[in-house]
């Protein structure tokens, strides 16, 4: 066991962890933040995407100790209670969700992009979401959702 100091969704914690865990397992099994999904477990599908120190990363291949001293944001931290973030609302409004398994990862990748650049080009959206695979929607509606969320964020909307 090793000591890990980390901030998850705004809460600082100092916990003992098994260093063999990946970050996704830690989030899901220790913190019960099961919104982060595990698809491939190899960094190839993006379902486990979380934001670590402002950057989108696939948490299934991040050793948990890598999170030492970092700030992690998961899908559970995106809304403000029941008030959804514009990205979440636009995914719903545009029909960018079908089975929903890819959605938390898609939203975290989108948020990492829009937090830094709320006026992205279509190419920038595609680059940001290139590592997120969806087997249902065909991506067009996802791109539309990100674009309209960007517009709302440019107008100052957030969840908080």
């Amino acid at each position, binding site marked *: 066991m090793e000591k890990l100091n980390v901030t998850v969704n705004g809460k600082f914690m100092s916990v003992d962890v098994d260093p063999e865990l*990946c970050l996704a397992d830690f989030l899901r099994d220790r913190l019960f933040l099961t919104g982060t999904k595990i698809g491939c*477990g190899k*960094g190839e599908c993006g379902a486990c*995407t979380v934001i670590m120190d402002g*950057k*989108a990363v*696939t948490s299934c291949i991040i*050793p948990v*100790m890598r999170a030492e001293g970092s700030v992690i944001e998961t899908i559970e931290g995106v809304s403000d209670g029941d008030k959804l973030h514009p990205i979440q609302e636009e995914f719903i409004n545009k029909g960018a969700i079908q089975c929903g398994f890819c959605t938390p990862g898609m939203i975290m990748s989108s948020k990492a992009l829009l937090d830094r650049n709320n006026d992205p080009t279509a190419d920038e959206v595609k680059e940001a979401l290139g590592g997120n695979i969806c087997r249902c929607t065909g991506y067009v509606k996802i791109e539309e959702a990100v674009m309209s969320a960007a517009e709302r964020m440019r107008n100052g909307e957030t969840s908080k």
Partner: protein
Amino acid sequence: MKYVIAQSAEEALKALKDAEGRGTIIAGGTDVMVELHEGERTAEVLVDITKAADLRGIRIDGKEIVIGSAATLSEIASDPIVRQYYPSLCKGTGSVGSLQIRNTGTLVGNIVTAQPAADGAMSVAPLNPVIVVRTFDGEKRLKISDMYVGFGKTALDTSKELVTEIRIPVPEKDEKASFVRLELRKSLSLPMLNAAAMVKYSENKVVWARITMGPVGVGPTRAAAAEEWLKGKELTEENMAEAGRLALKDANPRSNPLRGSREYREHSLPIIIRRVLEDIKAQF
């Protein structure tokens, strides 16, 4: 398992020494983690170098661009120094995996995993990089061709050795580089073929050319026959096409069920080499 977060190269080497061969360096970990989980690799001690200040960042030192071994592919792809001198290296590093992978993976890792078509390694290969390795009793400087001993096999012993940085000469005005990949899809997929080149071109003559290609051998493979033939020649359509054909002399592609048969790759390689040269020509 023990996880050591090294704050410097010195600390990383000490941790390796203490582990007595049962440790391994981990940078981005995008490959190491998968191998550990699938049981393809064992390690009792992981030595994480991502927080080592002296291994991070990208800088100019005299006439060299120095890329720390903990610099991520994303950092390199968006770095203003790299963009100014070697846009092709931005393109190559920006083609690996996905944004999430590039946010954690490193260029050195992309070399050390020794995949013959790794985009980052391919794009840096013709730039004449020097790979600086620290061992328990000193330092050695390797060329990119020294880094590969077989398919997917690195020459480096990551239980004893640590790459600290890659040093790339700043190009002269008459030297340009390029990188091209033939891809099934942009993200999360190795290319069917990739190639890179650097050419010194003076008074409409090739002074020298370095052309690398993959996956057609162990690591980025030099198109030696094409390089030799190009010397003293102008980069005309015919000459670039001929260099493409000559590249086949040094290429031995395998068939891959996902990324193209040997025949397909042999058919396409001359076109990819021609494109790499056309891209260089367009920069003059």
